[in-house]
């Protein structure tokens, strides 16, 4: 029996120390999934904490023969999907309502070094790309690319069939490609018109 299983069994028997070890081990993937799903660091923190709490409460239902990270990410993904469907959370966008790029002014007193990393260009652009997808498509893409989950693992996590995963990934890639193309066209237009005045 490997070390992780020992910790899980101890946690199932009520050891808080063992569960804290599991939290420390999986905090990053769970937080990342929540952040990519919800798009705002504060919501992600709350969702990740809530996901661990749900895992803690339902630990007796966990089947030791299943993959623990898949089970944990499944809880987090469902929590975020529910949150997005119920509350329609505001999501982070690089552009304002009129499509003008937002200027990012960092508040150095409030940002942790880890948080600041989230604001790099690639991450922010990717975040905006993800927001164009539906909740389940987004979860499938995040699990596929950030967590390197197989189609079977994604199907298990999202409670859908493997063929549904394939078609969702297919559709999501198409959608991402379209948004990417639109963004590229906007950028190239912006480069041609640096001050926003059209060249008649």
């Amino acid at each position, binding site marked *: 029996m490997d070390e992780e299983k020992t910790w899980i069994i101890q946690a199932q028997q009520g050891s*808080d120390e063992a569960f*804290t070890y599991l*939290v*420390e081990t999986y*905090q*990053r*993937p769970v*937080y*990342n999934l929540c*952040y*990519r799903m919800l798009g705002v*660091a504060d919501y*992600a*923190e709350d969702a*990740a*904490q809530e996901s*661990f*709490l749900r895992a*803690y409460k339902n630990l007796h239902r966990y089947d030791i023969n299943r993959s623990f990270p898949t089970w944990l990410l499944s809880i987090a993904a469902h929590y975020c999907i529910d949150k997005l469907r119920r509350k329609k959370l505001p999501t982070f966008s690089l552009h304002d309502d009129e499509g003008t790029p937002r200027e990012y002014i960092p508040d150095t007193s409030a940002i*942790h070094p*880890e*948080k600041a*990393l*989230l604001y*790099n260009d*690639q*991450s922010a*652009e*990717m975040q905006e*790309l993800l927001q164009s997808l539906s909740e389940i498509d987004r979860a499938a*893409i995040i699990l596929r*690319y*950030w967590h390197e989950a197989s189609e079977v693992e994604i199907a298990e996590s999202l409670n859908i069939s493997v063929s549904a995963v*394939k078609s969702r*990934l*297919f559709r999501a*890639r*198409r959608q*991402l*490609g*379209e*948004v*990417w*193309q639109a963004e*590229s*066209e906007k950028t190239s237009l912006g480069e041609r018109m640096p001050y926003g005045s059209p060249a008649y």
Partner: protein
Amino acid sequence: MDHQHIEKKLLNDEQLTPEENRALRNHLPNCPICSALVEANLALKHVTMAAPAPGFANRFTTRLAGQRKAQKRRYFFGGLILFLSGAGALLWLASPLLTAALSSPADILTTWVSFIVATLSFIQTFSEAGKVVFRVATGFISPTTWAFALSLLSILGMFILSFSQKLLVQRQPV
């Protein structure tokens, strides 16, 4: 190799053969759709994991402790409300009796004692009457009839017992 074939391969994120790779390189400069797909796919394959602010596990422990405290509080107040409601309902049901008992305790005592005495005397009379009927009946019925009746009853009993056992065996889950 046409656009549709390349696009399908990209959308399915399938491994390309060297020949398909060459075709893709030739196709990309003329196709903004496939170029966007390739770029988006490349970006997705170089994503970074977001990390929570330091102290995540400590914040979780604090949150868990808070939840436990809240749950204890909920159990306590839930139990208290249940107890108070039960006590209130009992008081409400017993209120006429209590009022009567408080207004005239002697009357209530007399009613209770007479009720107990009546019940006891009824039981005594009934048992006496039963004894008499048994004595008279044994004189009228012959021993052969008794033996026949008892055998009939025992056969009926065995039949019921075996039938009920069969039913129990059939209903047991597999």
